[in-house]
């Protein structure tokens, strides 16, 4: 698997990178960690004339606290994101999802911006980006523009990026207090992409009975772009959490994951196993479950060797239920 020949430049600054892209025209490609681009080149599915390597540009690295949001440099590696105290404290959903990406080797090279720019609906981060309303800061020779996540993902492997544009950073809004998070990834082997994934953020109120006040749900691999499950979000608002977590054996069953080691020692039926749903009784249990039933509305999931659309729709419902439950529990500090 040898790519067709191409030129390679490693600019010393963002300014130079923009200029290099400008001069090279449509056939140029930005190279960051190379974990998605190089496989495409090696399979000869892409024939760029020149690669502009932005992976080592200081301007694209680092993670900063900007008050209302975190600014994650486009070239911050997955590993840096997972280990970042800032990300874990302020935007834990990003760290939770990134920790499920591929394997340690890929996470050391692959980057946050590259992953999002690649726009693979099976990638774990695009769903998080739409769930959290991230914003993309994009530079080109004509200046800087900011694109919201909902406008960024256009189609399968297609984004709002025009030729000559470079993502410099991604802004991740801080959600504030009372939120809990979970990324539920269902995959067949530890290194496999998600068959379906669900990113959930849940704000829980304890005023007048514990209930969900607000939820954000993003779906991985349920269409050609990441999906925001807005119907679930609307339906789950106000759902009561009666706090009988674990008392009803048939409530959850959320411990058997896509791959055996993913929940070390979490034998179903005990611990955070089968009773993982945050509610036991028929009524409130129904509310969360019913809301989750809407997860597949309006989606057009793909068919591949790991599952057909019908199965994926089913998974989206089950996993949404589990993700919301786990997120709610973590909001309650459990």
């Amino acid at each position: 698997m040898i790519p067709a020949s191409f030129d390679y430049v490693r600019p010393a600054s963002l300014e130079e990178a923009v200029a290099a892209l400008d001069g090279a025209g449509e056939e140029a490609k930005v190279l960051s960690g190379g974990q998605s681009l190089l496989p495409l080149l090696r399979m000869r599915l892409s024939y760029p004339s020149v690669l502009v390597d932005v992976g080592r540009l200081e301007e694209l690295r680092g993670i900063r606290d900007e008050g209302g949001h975190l600014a994650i440099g486009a070239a911050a590696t997955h590993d840096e994101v997972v280990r970042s105290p800032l990300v874990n404290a302020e935007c834990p959903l990003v760290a939770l999802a990134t920790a499920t990406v591929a394997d340690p080797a890929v996470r050391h090279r692959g980057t946050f911006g590259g992953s999002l720019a690649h726009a693979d609906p099976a990638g774990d981060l695009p769903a998080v980006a739409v769930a959290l309303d991230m914003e993309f800061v994009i530079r080109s020779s004509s200046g800087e523009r900011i694109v919201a996540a909902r406008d960024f993902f256009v189609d399968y492997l297609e984004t709002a990026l025009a030729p000559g544009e470079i993502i410099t950073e991604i802004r991740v809004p801080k959600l504030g207090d009372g939120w809990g998070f979970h990324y539920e990834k269902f995959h067949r082997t530890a290194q496999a992409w998600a068959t379906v994934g669900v990113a959930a953020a849940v704000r829980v109120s304890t005023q007048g009975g514990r209930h969900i006040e607000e939820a954000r749900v993003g779906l991985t691999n349920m269409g050609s772009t990441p999906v925001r499950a807005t119907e679930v979000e609307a339906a789950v608002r106000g759902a009561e959490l009666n706090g009988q977590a674990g008392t009803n054996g048939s409530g959850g069953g959320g411990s058997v994951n896509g791959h055996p080691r993913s929940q070390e020692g979490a034998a179903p039926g005990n611990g955070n196993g089968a009773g993982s749903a945050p509610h036991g009784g028929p009524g409130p249990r129904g509310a969360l479950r019913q809301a989750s039933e809407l997860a597949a509305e309006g989606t057009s999931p793909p068919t591949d060797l790991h599952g057909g659309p019908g199965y994926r729709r089913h998974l989206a419902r089950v996993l949404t239920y589990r993700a919301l439950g786990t997120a709610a529990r973590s909001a309650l500090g459990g």
Partner: protein
Amino acid sequence: MTEEIDAGMVARRIAEDGDLSEPAPGRNEVGAARRRKEDARLVTGRTRWTDNIQLPGMLYVAFVRSPMAHARVTRVDTSAARAMPGVVAALSGADLAGEQGSLPCAWPVTEDIVLPDHPPMAVEEVRYAGEAVACVIATDRYKAADALEAVEVDYEPLPAVLDMVKALEEGSPKVHEAGNRSYVWKFGTGDVDAAFRDAPVVIERTYVQQRLIPSAMEPRAVVAETDGDFFTLHSSTQIPHILRIMLAQVTGIPEHKLRVVAPDVGGGFGSKLQVTAEEVILLLLARRLGKPVKWTESRSEGNLTVHHGRDQIQRLALAADADGRLRGLRVDLLADMGAYLMLVTPGIPILGAFMYNGIYKMDAYDFTCTGVFTTKMPTDAYRGAGRPEATFAIERLMDELADELSLDPVDLRRRNWIGHEEFPYTTVANLTYDSGNYEAATDRALAVFGYDKLRAEQADRRERGEPVQLGIGVSTYTEMCGLAPSRVLGSLSYGAGGWEHASVRMLPTGKVEVVTGTSPHGQGHETAWSQIVADALSVPFDDVSVIHGDTSSSHKGMDTYGSRSLVVGGIAVVQACDKVKEKARHIAAHMLEASPDDVEFAGGTFRVRGTDAAKTIQEVALAAFAAHDLPPGVEASLDSEATFDPENFSYPHGTHLCAVEVDTETGATRIREYVAVDDVGNVVNPMIVEGQVHGGIAQGVAQALFEEAVYDAEGNLLTTTMADYLLPSAADLPEFTTDRTETPATSNPLGVKGVGEAGTIASTPAVVNAIVDALRPFGVKDVPMPCTPERVWRAVHGGGS
């Protein structure tokens, strides 16, 4: 940081660690968990893999491969490719038609088998996606890859033939002119009709052994060179000796002018038990161009064109009495040959024919196998080769029968297996099992597993209707190892014998070189053979080196496959040592001025019985070299060789138990416990045995849960990368609990049985039995392999398969 990944340091650590595994003083080497002496160089890469070989003036070969499953090749134009920078030559199949011959099949299983011509590069017609149609030779591999795109090939599509059942129907499009049925092979004993007539219970099932892609760590690679007269072929192969003979026959290069070298080889699992198109073409290119040539496959190229494994449809019927006693078994197989018959393609399902009865007694047996051509990559040997399929069938059927009769599956097996006091036992398939103790292995496994406790938990979960159900799978297997008695191979129309060769030479300084005809590619023969020789000659383990894999230094052999190396090759080593010892005793007696009958050998020393007069074996070696005073008629060397041809196969057995948790809401399966108690006879190196068992189980679990080669409706392979062809990693597998019972084989002096395939054979049915067991309350009787979450979920919700 840099120190941590320094290769030399890793090598030193492994070597130092090796000291820890030395046997206690006075203890035998055989039985000690010696660290493998070859590992330092293998894991650090400080060795010669075929792709590492760089020769002056070397050229690089790349192949143009058919994008179609079936088509007529109407035009191949290499002219544009030849004009590309660095391209030295570009050749089509037609360009080599006069010299490329046909790839060999050494196992025509029936007299009237359809054995089509198999040109290494297609000339008129391509019959599977990936078949080579042309090649480009350039000064580096990058230029060769670029030039591939400039070769123009016109194809006229022909209908793909993908489904074995449809392929056999009247009017099906044909893969070959002679039709899609390659052969029908039958075997049977007893009165099978009587066994089924009035049988109180008959279990009929159809199981599908999906197509698998052997995934050795090291991709295939070939380097060929010549001085104009003599040829050397380096290949990542399991079979340098067989390859040499076959290549001589195919290319016309005389055998004595051809040397084949298997340098260190990174795994094979049967996939490198082959004579490949690329090996033939590279030899021809070296001859044509007079320059060394190299080809190394990419993983995707490998997935397309490494021979595939399994791919059978098994139509089965098992007849039993009401108490579960087995009466008879009918097996009707369709075996997908793929597009051509390669080295042992037709024989693979036949190897299984003798194993469908497993460890059980029954009255009658009937076996039919139909070999079917399709427009897919040919199938051939893959770890277990025929025996995993057979074991899967009988072990799945036993669980189904137990369910039908509401018997515990272990209890049903007890009622039918051969009792330990009944050995040697001649089975319904006419094999004589020499030894075994199924009771002991099963009892040990049940105890370690905690069988009763898990059954209680299962009942509890069923009772409560939990979404996560527990299933328990039983697999009590045996296999025939130590391929093979030459006489048996002859009776099965195989093209060669099954003996193995070894020579042992004591060097003047008392060190020992062992030359083996087996060809290790990861198994650890250098360590195990050293342990055997250290005991046999009473020399230190470190004083032994093992030479293999090069037909110029290891001139005779049958290579490595079928768990044969220790059971056949190891015995040849023992016998060669015996001859060396005998010769040394004569020389020692002469030196000690005693009669050979009065000289005994112990602890490395020849001693005149009842005296202090003694010579060490090292002193004798030096005397043999100096040859100043040898007894009359004794040659000046302490060398010997031996060829061992087994009388019988060996029969490892064991009991594997698997507990799975199946999430009925998502279909996800998690293996919770896996216990393997294997009886591989006496053990030369427990650590190597452990490694083989672990890897074997992983590979069998992979068939049950993960792996499948998938062709689409046009015959394109969809699983060309590891993103689509799922191999489990350590992260996807449970801790294996392994244990052993040791019932020595009676058919060889070491009492060994072979362990290379056991884990793979046993584990697939253990896992699938467990999944089906978990889902019995839902009316599920089968889940097709691999048992993907979607298939499991559909089985649950479809109320069956």
